[in-house]
């Protein structure tokens, strides 16, 4: 694997859209060609080279390309948009849409990530060492096809709309979360290791939520059915199992009704 290191030399005045920063677009290009890739700041179309200095070398394919981003890029959006393979390491906080519509590969953000982290992700892995905000692994507005595969791990806390309209894949929030976890989901798994304010699994057709802390305001649509031992992110705990959302429509498989589940640590 080859590595391209991009180091911030100039802060944008507003926000910069770094949709070109993906292993797919860097692969097979010289540093000069990479520096020539576009980035929008409002209506101005800049080149990545106007903000970053580039070192190293890209691989022949996305899978063979690692990108390291140095400098404070918290005002830069859309790192790893639609990437299919390779790696991105961001050594600071990043703005919105990290790994949006991502299909494969790996992204690590050392700091915080802003909203719409990994929205509509299909595969790959995102790790955020700081906090995330709202809409982690949720769907784009109006789409009933949210995150469908891959793994998002947030080591800090997160806000609202985690896994909205999710259909597959896994989201792990190691800290607390606010409201709306797996809302409208039709599959997928969300693990919250801290506490949640409420609205876990609202309008959920199918899917699994694991909460290791407390749910302050549980929804009336969930009913406790069992106490079970389950593995959750490599550890086994005893959970109270709730099924729901009983207000929402439910599918059937082999004559059995399929429910969404909340596993709340007992």
């Amino acid at each position: 694997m080859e590595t391209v290191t991009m180091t911030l030399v100039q802060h944008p005045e507003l926000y910069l859209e770094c949709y070109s920063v993906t292993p797919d677009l860097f692969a097979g290009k010289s540093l000069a060609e990479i520096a020539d890739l576009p980035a929008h700041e409002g209506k101005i179309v800049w080149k990545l080279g106007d903000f970053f200095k580039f070192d190293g070398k890209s691989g022949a394919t996305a899978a063979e390309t690692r990108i390291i981003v140095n400098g404070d890029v918290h005002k830069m959006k859309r790192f790893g948009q639609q990437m299919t393979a390779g790696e991105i390491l961001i050594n600071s906080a990043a703005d919105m849409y990290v790994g949006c519509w991502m299909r494969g590969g790996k992204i690590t953000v050392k700091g915080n990530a802003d909203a719409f982290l990994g929205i509509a992700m299909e595969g790959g892995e995102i790790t955020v060492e700081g906090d995330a905000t709202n809409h982690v692994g949720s769907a784009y507005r109006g789409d009933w096809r949210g995150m469908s595969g891959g793994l998002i791990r947030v080591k800090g806390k997160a806000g609202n709309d985690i896994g909205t309209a999710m259909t597959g894949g896994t989201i792990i929030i190691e800290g607390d979360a606010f409201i709306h976890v797996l809302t409208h989901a039709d599959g997928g798994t969300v693990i919250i290791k801290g506490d949640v304010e409420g609205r876990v699994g609202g309008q959920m057709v199918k899917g699994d939520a694991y909460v290791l802390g407390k749910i302050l305001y549980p929804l009336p649509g969930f009913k406790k059915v069992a106490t079970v031992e389950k593995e959750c992110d490599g550890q086994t705990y005893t959970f109270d199992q709730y099924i729901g959302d009983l207000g929402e429509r439910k599918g059937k498989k082999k004559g059995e009704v399929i429910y969404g589940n909340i596993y709340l640590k007992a």
Partner: protein
Amino acid sequence: MPKVIENVGCPYCGCSCDDVRVTVSDDGKKVLEVENVCAIGTEIFKHGSSDHRIRKPRLRQPDGSMKDITYEEAIEWTAQHLYKAKKPLMYGFGSTNCEGQAAAARVMETAGGMLDNCATICHGPSFLAIFDNGYPTCTLGEVKNRADVIVYWGSNPAHAHPRHMSRYSIFPRGFFTGKGQKKRTVIVVDPRYTDTANVADIHLRVKQGHDYELFDAFRMVVNGHADDLPDVVADVPKEQILEVAEIMANARFGTTFFGMGLTHSDGRNHNIDIAISLTRDLNKVAKWTIMAMRGHYNIAGPGVVWSWTFGFPYCLDLTKKNYAHMNPGETSSVDMAMRDEVDMFINIGTDAGAHFPIPAVQHLKKHPWVTIDPSINMASEISDLHIPVCICGVDVGGVVYRMDNVPIQFRQVIDPQGLLDDETLLNKIADRLDELNAQGA
């Protein structure tokens, strides 16, 4: 001889009443009398012929004072700043006609900027819910003619839509509802005992910010899980939930009118989303519709006009010039203000100065600020340039969209006396931008 103009549209709330009678002076310059209008609407017509109306654009001077300038100078100033800005934002349209909104779309597409309307801080979450779950609705006449159960949820028409209950919902005698209020059941869900709750048959005093749970509870009942319901949900006792669910399920025709109580509290769009889910559930057993209590007489307008222009109703990012992008939370005015994402602000037909949370105003004020509005308001009084325009429905007519998206044709009642209307002003700005773009290219 004073002249009476009938069937005039009222430029206040989303009721967009079109039965106002206005008497104007012989010279067509003054409104003498208005009838069939609520107290708020009256003030708008009065204001239209006030001697204190601003009639010339005003540019702020280095000493902080405002100096009258010509429209041509104001157009030039605005076009130049739009041209220079990397990411200008035009926001407002609570009180403009659709013709003006279409012209605004052209301006911001040409400028490569952001375009947003007041829905962003009002019913924007309702749009988000419509995106996610659809919108089973009807026109207001259906409610008047058919509805036997009416729910006002987080909305307070007694204050915000003064003639709503009398023209469209509770009181009128419609075709199948000849007995009017007597045959209708009215339910109000609100954390306050509002003046609307006061005329209702049932008031559910929901715990503020917990409407989502209450909707979930209703859906449980409608979908056959009443037995699993907790004793109290969002401060509402189970018996009351069962009682109201029974009324809803037995409606011949029911309508839920929802307002800011849902869009402004925790969960925002999800509160409406689940209300739509409940409406869908109820349509399995009864006939149900749902409607947003849109605030202004034509605030549905920009959503309609920009949807046919760009495919999105609000929060438009037109900076890419060849395609539009929308994602509220990112491209919404208050979020962009708070993140310092924009570098010019045009406030049109609204008052961001008064209605945005003050930190957002402080952020926006770091950059050039233009206010296009007939009145002196908070935005005009902090702006660099204030351009007065016609009041739609008073000095200029046009098409407006009522809260149920029914287009209503508004009439001009008095002479604009030299004031430009929004459409003309904005098209002149767009023409000038076309020239600047051509020169730049």
